[in-house]
């Protein structure tokens, strides 16, 4: 049962990924990305990580792609504004061929791993409480560093935007 769900979810995720690079219209690309992200969220849920599953939907599907769609719609791109991509399919195929060695490496290492049972773990693995305790007891410093980094990026974006405005006024 779990194998079937996993297969369906991964097929949806792969289809979403393909759609994202193949569609010419940016809105459809963004939508394919949402499909891919939600399917990945489903795989997280299968892997006994309910917190990651919810956060994936809240942050990526709920917030980031909404922002992306907002910007795409705000620009209001017409069909003639889109760049012409005559070699699109061949570029994608070449890219895929170039990635084969990496895929081979990854698949090889997967095959070398021992068999692990694919079922939902009990005793609260991946639940919010265990996750939070682990994060704030063993990984506190990296966690705080990342939040500082994000804050710096935020402040940087604000400063950058402000400078642009000033130069326009002059």
């Amino acid at each position, binding site marked *: 049962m779990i194998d079937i769900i996993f297969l369906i979810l991964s097929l949806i995720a792969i289809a979403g990924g393909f759609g994202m690079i193949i569609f010419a219209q940016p809105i459809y690309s963004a939508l394919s990305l949402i499909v891919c992200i939600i399917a990945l969220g489903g795989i997280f849920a299968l892997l006994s990580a*309910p*917190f990651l599953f*919810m956060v994936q939907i*809240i942050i990526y599907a709920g*917030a980031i792609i909404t922002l992306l*769609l*907002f910007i795409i719609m*705000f620009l209001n791109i017409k069909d003639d504004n889109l760049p012409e991509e005559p070699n699109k399919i061949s570029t994608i195929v070449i890219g895929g061929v170039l990635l084969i060695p990496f895929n081979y490496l990854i698949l090889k290492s997967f095959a070398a791993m021992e068999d692990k049972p694919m079922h939902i773990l009990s005793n609260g693995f991946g639940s919010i409480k265990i996750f939070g305790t682990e994060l704030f007891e063993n990984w506190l410093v990296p966690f705080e560093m990342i939040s500082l980094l994000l804050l710096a990026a935020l402040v940087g974006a604000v400063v950058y935007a402000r400078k642009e405005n000033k130069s326009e006024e002059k």
Partner: protein
Amino acid sequence: MDIATVSIVIINIVIAIILSLAFVPILVWMERRVAGFIQDRLGPNRCHIGGMRLGGLVQSFADMLKLVFKEDYRPDSIKEKLLFTLSPAIVFATSFLTFMVIPFSDDLTIGAKTYMMQALPIDLGILWILAFAGLSVYGIILGGWASNNKYSLLGGVRAAAQVISYEATMGLSIISILIVYGSVNLGDMVRFQGELLWGFIPAWGVILQPVSAILFIITAFAETNRAPFDIAEGESEIVGGFHTEYSAMRFGLFFVGEYVAMSAASALIVTLFFGGYQIPWLNTEALKDNIQTVLISTIVIMPIISFFFARWIKRNNVWPVKDDPRAKETGRLLKVLIFINVLIVLSLALILAFGISSNGVNISVALIQFITFVAKLIVMNFFFILVRWTLVRFRYDQVQDLGWKILLPISIANIFVTAIFVVAFGG
């Protein structure tokens, strides 16, 4: 899977469907009557089936039927047919799914097993709701974009901007309430609110966290796109906003979705801040210990309330023409009221006479709590409707200013103050 498990799962799902879907006609009726009341007119009250008007409630059913049977028209200018059809369904499905994790009563114990009284028994609670609150805006954005119409596109862009701005405040106001409750599970939160503060005040969220409650209610209005935050529709500025090109049941899904979202937001506000299914000063244990007293007082109080209700019906529900079927309605309503009273009093008396088992006690407590929850839900929905017809719509820049410059700083300050309090006084 024994019979008890299966039946409880089915009952929970049916309750969720009733409280979200079947509530829509009632909410539409409430909206129209309240609008009528505020604008000094009567509102719908003539439509009837065999003389039964039910105060105008029948009108909403007629309205729903009209939407279903209308011609499904789609303008030729629409190129993205799939997205155009999909977006009302997204709005409807996401607002409907939000309802799935609201607890209707305390965990029900039957025999040896304990059941969570939610349609979807998971303990992610608030995260689930945040996830689907964020997804619901896609329906509006895509609908606005797929309509291939400038007004619709403007409506979609406005909706996206508004939801992005208010989601931040909503999440932050939830964080401060999470610090107090110490759990993301909605059931745990409601159980926390059953306790008493200093022995005499119910520990409801609105008393512990008034700032967070106000912020959350404001952002809930914005998330459900209801007035005063309905700039996505804004019929005085952008025709009909995102649903300008929609008609028939496609529009109907947007319409139903809006009311389901409103009902879900009310349920969430009730659960987070107004004690959910808890009756003040009577938490689950107290109810179980005093079940006899509660049942006896129900037997005494119900006929008295019904008597005054019947007098109110007699005074207000009159039809001037004598030979119209609608003139007989009051008599029939009174008969039904008396019948319900006799039925309930008799069955309660029988239960008291024969005594009740522990399963019976648990079930009756769950029933009482469910009724309490529905009563609170109706009051909260009434508040939503009252606000819609009292306040005027914000201008677009005012919405953004309110979200980013006022609500967001307040919510961050609230988190700091709450955290300091909890750390200093040990929660």
